[in-house]
């Protein structure tokens, strides 16, 4: 082991965390090299000196001051939380109001102003004349022949019997319409 290696591993040597082989190497080098031995002694003595520095204690009112500061911090945190809550509430109210105003404005814009009532133009159609059945237009020739001729009713009835279907169905049809 040379001096450079010794210096590099010195922290682990001081802290006694070197593995066996390296530890022996360091110890051998320490016995051989006066300069490194002096360095080792200096480091150890200075560390001892530093570790023996008197410890300082907190001032007597440390606890009280801390307690007061924590109380203040708590109060500030609570105030901030409340502020946040009231800010949130204010924001909600503002947004709702804006939305309502917007809705009202929109509604007012689209309200129907009174105007003359305009009806759609009246379209009239001429009724389509119902077609007159041909049979109505021209009664059975037998009836036509019978009526002016002054024939008795029995004869007319007999005559009607001969064309009843034709006559009755036409009557019915015209009635239904």
């Amino acid at each position, binding site marked *: 082991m040379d001096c450079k290696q010794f210096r590099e591993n010195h*922290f*682990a040597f001081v802290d006694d965390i070197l593995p066996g082989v390296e530890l022996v190497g360091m110890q051998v080098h320490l016995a051989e090299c006066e300069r490194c031995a002096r360095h080792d002694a*200096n480091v150890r003595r*200075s560390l001892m000196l530093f570790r023996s*520095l008197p410890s300082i*204690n907190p001032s007597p009112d*440390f606890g009280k001051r801390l307690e007061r500061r*924590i109380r203040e911090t708590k109060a500030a945190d609570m105030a901030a939380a409340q502020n946040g809550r009231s800010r949130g509430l204010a924001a909600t109210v503002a947004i709702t109001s804006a939305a309502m105003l917007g809705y009202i404005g929109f509604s007012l814009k689209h309200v129907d102003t009174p105007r003359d009532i305009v009806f759609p133009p009246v379209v009239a159609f001429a009724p389509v004349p119902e077609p007159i059945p041909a049979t109505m237009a021209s009664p059975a020739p037998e009836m036509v022949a019978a009526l002016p001729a002054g024939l008795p009713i029995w004869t007319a009835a007999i005559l009607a019997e001969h064309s009843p279907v034709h006559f009755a169905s036409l009557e019915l049809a015209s009635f239904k319409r």
Partner: protein
Amino acid sequence: MASIVRKHAVQPVRANVREQLKAMDDSAVVTAFLGGEERAFSELVERYQTRLLNFVYRTIGDREKAEDLVQEVFIRVYRHLHRFDRSKKFSTWAYTIASNLAKNELRNRSRNPLVLFQTVQKNWEDDDRPVQFEDTTSRPDDMYRKRHLREIVEESVAKLPEHHRNVFILRELEGKSYEEIAEITDCNLGTVKSRLNRARNSFAEIVAPYME
């Protein structure tokens, strides 16, 4: 009468809780605090106030400011304990906060010469203090020598570069492991070892002439 009886009954309970808290490890105390036991916080303060104060004082060299910073550490602990990762060590977390605050303080000082001047002035006042606070059983020349040596040691620590000093104090004064130091200072293990080695060598070189 009933209130007196109640008072007497409550006091042992309180004392009992304090004793229980004292017997707990940090993790259990933290759990108790998060569970609503306010006295658990006082227990944490009691455990760490002196250690943190010494750490910060050795880092920044100003006692009054060190107390303020330690108070700030506890306030942050109080406010953010619910965010603390309980799989880790509480002490490492507290030291990390303290280390960051001390670092910020040193940075602010280097930016603000007035603060630096005030610190120097405070040290002058310290120098004027009578020697009676030292060990009174020693002879006057011994007391002077001791006090002088203490000042030299403190000055030598102050002369170390900030990142070396931080590692040095955490290791030598607080007895932290390399891993813990790496976590507190937010650097890797190799860097911690190298910084510690350099800090020890520099410190020894500064102090050596005064020890002979």
